[in-house]
């Protein structure tokens, strides 16, 4: 998983990240106001705010990580310094949880959760249980049918 380098002027991390979060082409002289041709995108502030936790990244979420994908803590991982959000995710995943459950229980935006889970996976703190076959096989469906029939 590679993330765009936010310092790479030629390929800004994300076009809609507000300008002062990344160094622009003329950043050598320090901060400069934007040319007036580009009005500050006020409406984007509300959209982006949750992603402050991810340092502004909104893409780069691992496509393997779906909403129902199960996540557990990797007990063999070396302790490391983590953000409060990441610590909360690791603490929650002592029991298997889906990404959607993590998002709901910690009140984290779903997109943010996916990125943080991806980061924690890359750091070796979490095991993300990606399914081998994406399409469910008949045997699994039969088990779901039997399980559903059993409830009253």
């Amino acid at each position, binding site marked *: 998983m590679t993330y765009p380098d936010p310092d790479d002027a030629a390929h800004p991390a994300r076009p809609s990240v507000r300008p002062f979060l990344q160094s622009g082409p003329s950043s050598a002289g320090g901060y400069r106001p934007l040319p007036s041709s580009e009005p500050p995108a006020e*409406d984007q502030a509300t959209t982006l705010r949750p992603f402050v936790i991810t340092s502004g990244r909104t893409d780069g979420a691992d496509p393997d990580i779906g*909403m129902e*994908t199960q996540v557990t803590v990797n007990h063999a991982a070396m302790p490391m310094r983590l953000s409060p959000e990441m610590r909360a995710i690791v603490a929650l995943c002592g*029991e298997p949880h889906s990404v959607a459950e993590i998002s709901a229980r910690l009140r984290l*935006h779903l997109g943010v959760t996916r990125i943080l889970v991806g980061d924690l996976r890359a750091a070796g703190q979490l095991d993300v249980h990606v399914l081998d076959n994406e399409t469910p096989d*008949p045997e699994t469906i039969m088990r779901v049918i039997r399980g559903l029939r059993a*409830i009253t």
Partner: protein
Amino acid sequence: MDFEQSPDHFVGTARVGGKPKKAPVPVKIIVAGGFGVGKTTTVGAISEISPLTTEAEMTSESVGIDDPGQATMKTTTTIAMDFGVLTIDQTLKLYIFGTPGQSRFAFMWDDLIKGALGALVVVDTARIDDCYPAVDYFERAGLPFVVGVNTFNGQMNYNLEEVRWALAVREDVPVLSFDARFRASVRDALLVVLDQALDKAIRARST
């Protein structure tokens, strides 16, 4: 559901040994439909936990909301998605995701239907056209789906044949009525979805 929590099975021993519990295999069913047709009620009726809500980003203008009572108030840029869980057994968990059925939410459906067993499209006969985008999308995506007319007020303005005609769904797409408030009714509707899913999985295997 209580039977999966029988205390002397491996729930207890997993902790004593300090071993991480094996993660269950997740499967999911989508519940789609317009605002206020009873998606959350449907999810809540079948889920073993009270439905959880997760927020996803909405990039386009948000005009509609999931509450017909305050239709003019909301201007947020996130949409809420309710979901529930049903533990089939220690190794298998069913997730039920409720998702808005309008086409402006289609950006999140690609993610949602990946690996999904099938979908239940919830219809309110007073506003049948609300579910057109969802039906269109599932047809094109090849996801097995069932049209479920929610009879939560105990009456239907149209019979099922008329609903089928209005939606112009293929002959092999089941159109049924159910009551989102009752667990058994939701269960039966989901069983029809699973039947469709099973048919598709068996066809896929034999080819």
